[in-house]
């Protein structure tokens, strides 16, 4: 039993670390870096692109991509090792490219052709082309497949009408993978088709959504008679759900990303806070809460070790991979709440001179989103119950019913 890297892994980590040390500084625990910090700065995209080019040149972009598509042909494990190392450094953040790199291109690898892929791969690798995902719709929510955006065949084209929501990076994307309904007389998961959409096509309109925190990290995208040539279809007509799922499986995996504050930050905060009774860290009630948060933080760290063990032995990771997002979004909200409570009346302050630039206060406002995006707490529990524990599905009223006949509101019931 050993959680050290394999010799090859250790070698890879050493090189990656050397690369990072050459180009960046370690990030201190009290930096106060929050979710998408700096992303809203107009210069952020340019900085991120610069960093992406450095990575691409050094072979740390597209680590798992096939070599024929300018990738490194590496393993998922190498990808994880690189990400673990990079997370410790103060590099330009922004997550402008991760949809293209981690979701869109892998979908194309499976469902598109070499010519099309080669048009994009190099640009995506270097941050010169940005992709977005056009799946979620206002009427969908957790019922992902309930989407209504229509695709109607017209000669060699398809004509798209409808609306998407929660499109991350929609405002600066060059392309998107769109799933639309081509047949409402089929059951919900049938009658869907996937396309590559050029975001600059006439009739595409992107509008930012303002989140409860006041930030705008997502968009609505409207389609008004948008034309897509049939050559940009991904998979067969009616196979849209299957195509969409390739990408979503990747998404579930990627979202296990940790968003600050993690345990290190709350511990640092408690260590540096003095209450009437003495240091916060010595108060038994706070100790109890910190111990519980630590158990979950370490539980996730070591669960990831188990996943990495499986990957390093060429095995499929076990069902424990499914717990990550549920555990992390819960402790994120709790940490944010606890951290802002530590200061009593002043815990409400969001000034820059608050500890860690009011990281806990900011996290209080963005943490609810993490319990929703990429599968709500409720959907994730359902998934664990059904896929891991093998419990029977809930009664499904929409199964095998033509999409147009599925009830969508109280009156239709």
């Amino acid at each position, binding site marked *: 039993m050993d959680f050290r890297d394999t010799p090859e892994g250790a070698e890879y980590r050493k090189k990656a670390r050397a690369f990072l040390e050459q180009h960046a500084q370690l990030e201190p625990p009290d930096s106060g870096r929050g979710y998408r910090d700096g992303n809203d700065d107009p210069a952020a995209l340019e900085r991120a692109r610069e960093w992406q080019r450095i990575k691409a040149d050094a072979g740390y972009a597209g680590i798992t991509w096939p070599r024929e598509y300018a990738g490194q042909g590496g393993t998922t494990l190498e990808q994880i090792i690189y990400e673990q190392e990079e997370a410790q450094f103060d590099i330009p953040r922004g997550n402008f490219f991760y949809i293209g790199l981690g979701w869109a291109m892998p979908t194309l690898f499976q469902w598109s052709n070499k010519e099309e892929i080669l048009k994009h791969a190099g640009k995506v690798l270097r941050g010169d082309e940005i992709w977005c995902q056009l799946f*979620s719709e*206002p009427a*969908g*929510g*957790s*019922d992902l497949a*309930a989407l209504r955006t229509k695709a109607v065949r017209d000669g060699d084209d398809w004509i798209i009408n409808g609306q998407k*929501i*929660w499109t991350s990076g929609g405002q600066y994307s060059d392309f998107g993978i769109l799933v639309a309904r081509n047949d409402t007389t089929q059951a919900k998961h049938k009658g869907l088709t996937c396309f590559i959409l050029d975001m600059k096509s006439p009739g595409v309109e992107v509008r930012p*959504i*303002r*989140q*409860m925190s*006041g930030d705008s990290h997502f968009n609505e995208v409207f389609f008004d008679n948008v034309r897509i040539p049939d050559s940009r279809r991904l998979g067969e007509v009616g196979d849209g759900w299957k195509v969409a799922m390739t990408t979503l499986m990747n998404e579930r995996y990627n979202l296990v990303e940790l968003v600050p504050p993690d345990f290190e930050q709350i511990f640092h905060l408690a260590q540096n*806070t*003095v*209450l*009437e009774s003495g240091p*916060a860290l010595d*108060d038994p*009630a706070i100790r109890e809460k910190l111990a519980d948060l630590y158990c979950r933080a370490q539980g996730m760290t070591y669960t990831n070790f188990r996943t990495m063990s499986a990957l390093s032995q060429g095995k499929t990771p076990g069902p424990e991979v499914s717990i990550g997002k549920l555990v992390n979004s819960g402790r994120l909200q709790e940490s944010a*709440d606890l951290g*802002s*409570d*530590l*200061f*009593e*009346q*002043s*815990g*409400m*302050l*969001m*000034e820059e001179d*608050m*500890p860690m630039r009011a990281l806990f*206060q900011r996290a*209080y*406002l963005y943490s*609810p*989103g993490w*319990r*929703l*995006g990429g599968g*709500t*707490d*409720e959907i994730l*529990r*359902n998934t664990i119950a059904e896929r891991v524990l093998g419990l029977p599905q*809930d009664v*499904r*009223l*929409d199964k095998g*019913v033509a999409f147009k006949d*599925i*009830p969508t*509101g*109280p009156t*239709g*019931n």
Partner: protein
Amino acid sequence: MNFDFPDEVKAMQIQADDYLTQTNARAAARHVIEGAPSAARRDWAEMAQMGWTGLIIPEHLGGNDIGYIAQCALAYELGRHVSPAPMASSIYLVAEALVRYGSDAQKQKWLPALAEGRISACFAEAEGLSQGRGDLCAAQVANGVLSGVKKPVPDGMDAELALVVAQEDGETGLYLVELQASGVTRQVVQTIEGIREHAAITFDKAEVDLLVRGQTALTDIKQRAAVCIAFEQVGGAQACLDMAVAFAKERFAFGRAIGSFQAIKHKLADMFVAIELARSNAYFAAWALSTDARELPVAAATARLSAGKAYWLAAKENVQTHGGLGFTWELDCHLYYRRHKALKLLLGGNRVWENRLIDGLKSGLVEL
């Protein structure tokens, strides 16, 4: 036994609900958070006209003296509509302190103006980061003038009068300070809440008028205000539950209302349970407040802790029930999520009130 609001209070409550609905208090809250706090000021004058600001102020001082039970019922509605009015600052805290501890001259000077809504007031206790410690208070009074910085001060930008917690010769005291006077500068500070403007107020040898000395008076005022604020918290939690229930009935997924799924049903049932417990505790605290009962310290702490817990559950799970929509600026879920935190931290967090509760039980304030 009549452990319920009297009929005349219920009638007033319905009026309050009507007014807050018609004037759209939630929209007013939204204006403040979007940087246009002026609407709150207009409503304040109207609320005074309806007598809301004078409920605990004697008639000869411009109030209507209807009493604490009515004030609690009103607080419930203000909380439910997430109103930005400076009621807690001006009335539950400052008017309360004047009524209980003011000299005749102090009462004459300030209470009619507060009752008639001509001015508003704020309560300045917190001092930024040192505030986890009630034993530390850097603001100092000497020779009748005050120096120090208070932040965050809710409603502090607009107020004409501040009640300031400060030290003089090593003893805590409560001081009245006119905020338009010299030696006072104010600056807006950003907070999680945003629905009320918060200020950092710097006092540089500002003239003060001593209201009362001693930690006991400070504790007394805070625990009395805590009862009214518990009603605001229960009201806010109820609004969250109402929003979530309405949404769960109308929103369909997988061909059925999401409210027919047990995950949603049980979440909302848990909210209901927490809110009813909190409501009952708030009722008892209202009785203790209105009768000056010896149980008040324990009753206020119980009401506050229980209301805070219910509001947290309701505020966060209301967002969750609404799904992605709940996370948008456009929906009102976040107004309650923000307000929850403000009400929980104003007057001190749970640790302070847990201690007050257990210490009260230890000293036999209530029969077990």
